[in-house]
């Protein structure tokens, strides 16, 4: 244990970033002793950077979840307090914040909705000593101890949607376009698998740099030349908007269908109603999902967050399940002991906006929805029940 702490106190002296009492107080953490009373939940949401578009929803939805939990007596009788941090910060900054939260603030659990680079930095900083719930959709493969993932995985997004589209639309040829980083490539790996399984053919695959001022005239012209039946889009944010608008601008929306795997209400608003014809999205949440649970969730959210509430969209709403997963985990484990939490995660049921999620292999078996864009809203055309996440974490 001494070995673990040495580098941390050195970092404390070098960076000067930690509170002056942190190094002195550090050994208290080692005992694992927990004061009864409040339960401290650290959150890493995108308060800055390109993802900060989603920050307000993440924060508002988490507040709703925590208020509901506290109104019902807290987690294991302890009231929850939230300590927010910036998940949009550079990974090294997020790691520093995680260490500070662990040593100085002695948080009991961390919930994060941010990109994978920040997740890896936080995982490395926490080293499994504080439980960590990761919530947005991601590429899969996160199996570090004491990390619990409620995110949609590529298997969940791709398998049912591609199979359904191949069958329903009769799509034979596919064109894949995405940003050049791990999530689009992992997602397309799955896509190619299920395209082949459905007897389809990939006629083109291309990636554009992430964070570059991309234009898509050339890509759209290539797609026009290849005439695929379906374009599989793993572009994110502004690129997703720009591509889809260019695609429709060149009139390709009239003859070619599209599915985008990171398309929620906010991005669709950017794409606009003139460019969303024949565009699909597949995720575990759409605001328009018609279940009773979602109606209740939305009503509670509107009541709590008021008339100017940030829009409900998948990235943001994911934190509701994350917070409730944290609650279910700690209550089932009877505390925050890592080994007990890991055991509790097997077949754990917790509340989500649309019902109940079931955790296995520290990922979640969940219902997935396929939605077709109608103007700037989503129309769910198919619900896939209890879709497997395809992860094998022990």
């Amino acid at each position, binding site marked *: 244990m001494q070995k673990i702490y040495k580098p941390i106190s050195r970092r404390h002296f070098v960076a000067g970033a930690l509170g002056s009492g942190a190094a002195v107080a550090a050994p208290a953490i080692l005992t694992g002793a927990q004061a009864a009373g409040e339960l401290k939940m650290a959150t890493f949401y995108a308060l800055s950077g390109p993802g900060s578009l989603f920050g307000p929803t993440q924060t508002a939805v988490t507040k709703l979840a925590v208020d509901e939990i506290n109104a019902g007596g807290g987690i294991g009788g302890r009231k929850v307090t939230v300590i927010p941090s910036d998940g949009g910060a550079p990974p090294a900054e997020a790691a520093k914040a995680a260490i500070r939260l662990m040593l100085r603030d002695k948080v009991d659990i961390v919930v994060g909705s941010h990109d994978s680079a920040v997740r890896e930095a936080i995982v490395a900083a926490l080293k499994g000593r504080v439980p960590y719930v990761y919530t947005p959709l991601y590429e899969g493969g996160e199996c570090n101890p004491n990390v619990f993932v409620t995110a949609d995985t590529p298997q969940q997004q791709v398998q049912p949607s591609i199979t359904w589209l191949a069958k329903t639309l009769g799509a034979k040829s596919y064109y894949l376009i995405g940003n050049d980083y791990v999530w689009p490539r992992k997602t397309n790996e799955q896509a190619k698998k299920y395209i082949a399984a459905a007897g389809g053919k990939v006629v083109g695959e291309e*990636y554009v740099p992430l964070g570059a001022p991309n234009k898509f005239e050339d890509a759209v*012209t290539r797609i026009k030349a290849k005439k695929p039946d379906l374009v599989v889009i793993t572009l994110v944010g502004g690129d997703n908007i720009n591509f889809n608008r260019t695609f429709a601008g060149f009139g390709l929306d009239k003859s070619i269908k599209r599915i985008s795997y990171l398309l929620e209400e906010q991005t669709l608003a950017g794409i606009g109603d003139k460019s969303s014809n024949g565009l699909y999205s597949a995720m575990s949440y759409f605001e328009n999902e018609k279940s009773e649970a979602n109606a209740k969730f939305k009503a509670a959210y509107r009541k709590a967050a008021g008339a100017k509430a940030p829009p409900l969209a998948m990235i943001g709403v994911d934190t509701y399940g994350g917070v409730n997963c944290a609650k279910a985990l700690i209550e089932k484990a009877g505390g925050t002991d890592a080994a007990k939490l890991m055991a509790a995660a097997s077949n754990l049921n917790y509340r989500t906006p649309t019902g109940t999620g079931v955790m296995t292999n520290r990922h979640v078996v969940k219902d997935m929805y396929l939605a077709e864009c109608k103007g700037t809203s989503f129309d769910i055309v198919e619900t896939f029940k209890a879709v497997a996440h395809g992860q094998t974490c022990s």
Partner: protein
Amino acid sequence: MDPILTTNILNVVYEVSTLAVVVLGLAVVFGLLGVMNLAHGEFVMIGAYCAFFVQTQNLPFLAAVPVALLVCIVLGLAVERILVRPLYARPFDTLLATWGLSMLLREGVEAVYGRGFKSVAVPLTDSIDVLGADYPSYRLLLAAVSIALVAGLVWWFVRSATGRRIRAVVNNPELAGSVGIPVTALARNTFVFGCCLAALSGVLLAPLMPVQPMLGLDFILKSFFVLVVGGLGSLVGLISGSGVIGGVESIVSAFFDRTYGYTTVLIIAILFLWLRPNGLFPRT
């Protein structure tokens, strides 16, 4: 002709011509004032937000042009007086000051409109048959307007009395004052003109890009590449720079992909800085 080839050619024309208009304002200001306005991209961004604002007011798209010009005249005058004029002949300080300004403008717009993507409806949604290739009308119109704007400005610069006086100031600022050219006012007007050109291109490009507070950064980088290649000396340099950068990027992107397009442009810019630092058409 093969419709795909036609489409690719039109893509290149579109990219080069719209790029030239964005860089034009930057180059005019640098040519006359020796001021590298790092906030140039933010004026493009403000122009785009003006188009969005006009849309939220249910006004026709073109109403954004006078709105953007008005906003940028007021803003440009203030910036010139407060920030640029006191720092003439201090290029490094000007870089810092305009960089600071760019952050201020981004934050300011973010405070009003937030970080979210805004979408401006494309005014013309149909397409036109060009030699068998369907090409979106608005992009064609935009390319035509951009070419007309650059050509008009070159003609004006060469033929008009004001154009001659600007060239005189660039060549010999001291003598220009002595023969009675109001150098201070001309510099001010040129700066404001550069800002207005940026805003105008922002309005025109708004329907074709996600409108968000950071969009100006995309333009400033590419504008620098154009100036590196074309040189800071003349409109000919500017146009050839836009042609090389915009053309190479879109041609390479059309035949390979965007990553190769960016890489090629970067290599060209580095080679120019290394082997021909004054660009194709150096300042005399």
